[in-house]
């Protein structure tokens, strides 16, 4: 049984003008100890998905529904707020993007770590502090005692993010969610933090959902990847397969849009024209249709469902006219498909 099962998750925000479907029927699973990448551009619904997993989508005006949303067999949506509180941190923990603003600026680091420990476990202050020092050492902080006595503004962004990871791992959660954990950091510091995340998740057997817009980070860290667009998963599969043989036109475009430091671009970088759709006014059918070079007439009539690839069933994509390997190489459709839209 997978550690996390998400089936048909939908999150809708109601505002004055109507309903905004931020997440629209997302299904995926995470196995124990596995690292899964959730990739997409702003507005694709990747962060809202993660917040829904934590039970952190607030407000009376939001609606979270799912056929199944279960961690270790426990259905999360039916839990009361107090039960959720008990599980947050212990079962699932989250690391946010901006480390300097997710720490409390007027509270010493020691208190911010021990607070989580003491809320869930009976520990003396001294025991909690020494546990906190161990946690900081685990995330590669060279002088834990100095850091424990510091306020966040004394620490660099990379150090703050390590502290956030230490806090998230304090209660040995089964699942860690990291929402753009390195986006605010410089590349050399990003490399340090990713190294820490790889090491600690491997050593503690913690499963990781890594939310990022950076396919390079996914390639370096995850085993499985879900590509999101307009609140949907459009392609999903083992990282090695998705990068070597993308089938969804959006995945193909995204991969071709990246300027690589180690290689000259083959042809033009601007592989995806136009802009992501406005979530309040999604086009009918497949939401990628208006930007898609592979579109057929039926694409704007009928939304494609996530279906397994015939040869590699681990790879799934939602597309009526999937990209062939030769087309992915060329970056454009090579067949004059009957009924192709102009």
């Amino acid at each position, binding site marked *: 049984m997978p550690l996390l099962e998400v089936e048909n998750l939908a999150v809708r925000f109601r505002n004055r003008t109507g309903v905004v479907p931020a997440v629209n029927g997302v299904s995926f699973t995470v196995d124990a100890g596995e690292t899964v990448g959730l990739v997409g551009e702003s507005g694709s619904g990747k962060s809202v998905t993660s917040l829904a997993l934590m039970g952190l989508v607030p407000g009376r005006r939001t609606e979270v529904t799912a056929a199944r949303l279960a961690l270790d067999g426990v259905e999360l949506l039916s839990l009361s707020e107090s039960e959720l509180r008990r599980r947050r941190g212990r079962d699932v923990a989250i690391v946010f993007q901006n480390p300097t603003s997710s720490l409390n600026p007027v509270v010493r680091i020691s208190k911010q770590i021990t607070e989580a420990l003491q809320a869930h476990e009976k520990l003396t202050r001294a025991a909690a502090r020494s546990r906190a020092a161990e946690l900081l050492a685990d995330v590669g902080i060279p002088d834990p005692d100095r850091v424990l006595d510091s306020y966040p503004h004394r620490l660099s962004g990379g150090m703050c993010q390590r502290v956030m990871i230490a806090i998230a791992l304090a209660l040995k959660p089964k699942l860690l969610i990291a929402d753009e954990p390195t986006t605010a950091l410089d*590349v050399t510091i990003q490399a340090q933090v990713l190294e820490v995340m790889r090491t600690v998740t491997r050593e503690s057997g913690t499963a990781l959902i890594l939310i990022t817009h950076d396919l390079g980070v996914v390639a*370096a860290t995850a085993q499985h990847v879900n590509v999101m667009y307009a609140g949907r998963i459009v392609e999903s599969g083992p990282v090695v397969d998705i990068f*070597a043989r993308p089938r969804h036109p959006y995945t193909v475009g995204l991969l071709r849009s990246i300027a690589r*430091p*180690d290689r000259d*671009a083959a042809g033009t*970088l601007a592989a995806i024209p136009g802009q*992501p759709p406005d979530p309040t006014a999604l086009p009918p059918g497949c939401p990628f249709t208006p930007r898609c070079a592979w579109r057929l007439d039926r694409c704007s009539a009928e939304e494609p469902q996530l279906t397994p690839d015939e040869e590699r069933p681990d790879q799934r994509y939602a597309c009526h006219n999937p990209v062939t390997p030769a087309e992915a190489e060329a970056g454009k459709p090579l067949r004059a498909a009957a009924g192709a839209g102009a």
Partner: protein
Amino acid sequence: MSAPAPLLSVRDLRVHYARRHANVRAVDGVDLEISRGGTLGLVGESGCGKSTLGKAVVRLLKPTSGTIEFDGCDLAPLDERGLRPWRRRIGMIFQDPYSSLNPRIDVHAWIEEPLRIHGRGSRTERTARVRDLLDRVGLPQAAEHRYPSQLSGGQRQRVGIARALALDPDLLVADEPTSALDVSIQAQVLELLAEIQRDLELTLLFISHDLGAVRQVAGEIAVMYLGRMCELGPARRVLDRPAHPYTVALLSAAPVPDPAVEAGRERIVLRGDPPSPAAPPSGCRFHSRCWLRESLDDPEICVTTDPPPVPAAGGGTVRCHFHDRVAGAPLAQPPPPGGHA
């Protein structure tokens, strides 16, 4: 063929900021030049002084010392009045398209403003010019009377580019022009910049922390660390055969969207954070984090002596006492080629 005179030539430039307790040496003795029609990519991490250098070049800042020779004239000592005739020849594109536009000024007025200030044309001529510029940067004519809040990030950046182009500059300084944008939009804006640079024969100083973006647009690359240049040279040479241990580390840290490459690569993870530019290390500024120095048993010369720029194999210059040992170091091997060509 002799090299044409550079359009921009910066010599021993220093920009120091006086802070309460310290003197921050943001740019501390930088030399660089860009030939007419060329593109220099300036890379480095936050705090290395690359944005300060860019602002000094367009003279939004007054340098502490050094010269900024633009088309034969030293801009460094000029005051606002003296700079005015030069302003129209240097355009700047800023990083954040959300905060660099005025929310209360519409697209037309924003692009027209520099034309008005420099007294270009009649009102009708200016309007025609604004429409040309919208076309040039790929914005629909319908965008002319929109406000920034009605535009996406990519569209805003296009507006910023149109304004920078309004006065037909010779030099364009672009400070992280794509960093705030989504991947697919970044690619569009990079393509646009490359196209404009080609068509208008602009000289471009492209400041970025993104080595991939720099590879796509720049002919030459300069790598900065703590206010100094580590390495400078033809883009391919710097990225494929880096001669400075810091460049090697930067490249090794940059994630590559290819699991085959990522799985096979040896990573240099630098220890610690960059030191403060208010108290830079003695000698070579990179010595406190240098993996090469560590592998050579911490030679003393790195701490005592600032390495001078010396020619690097394959072109350009490098400032490292042991640059000839970089290529042989086991960690500096380029990653194995990926699955597809």
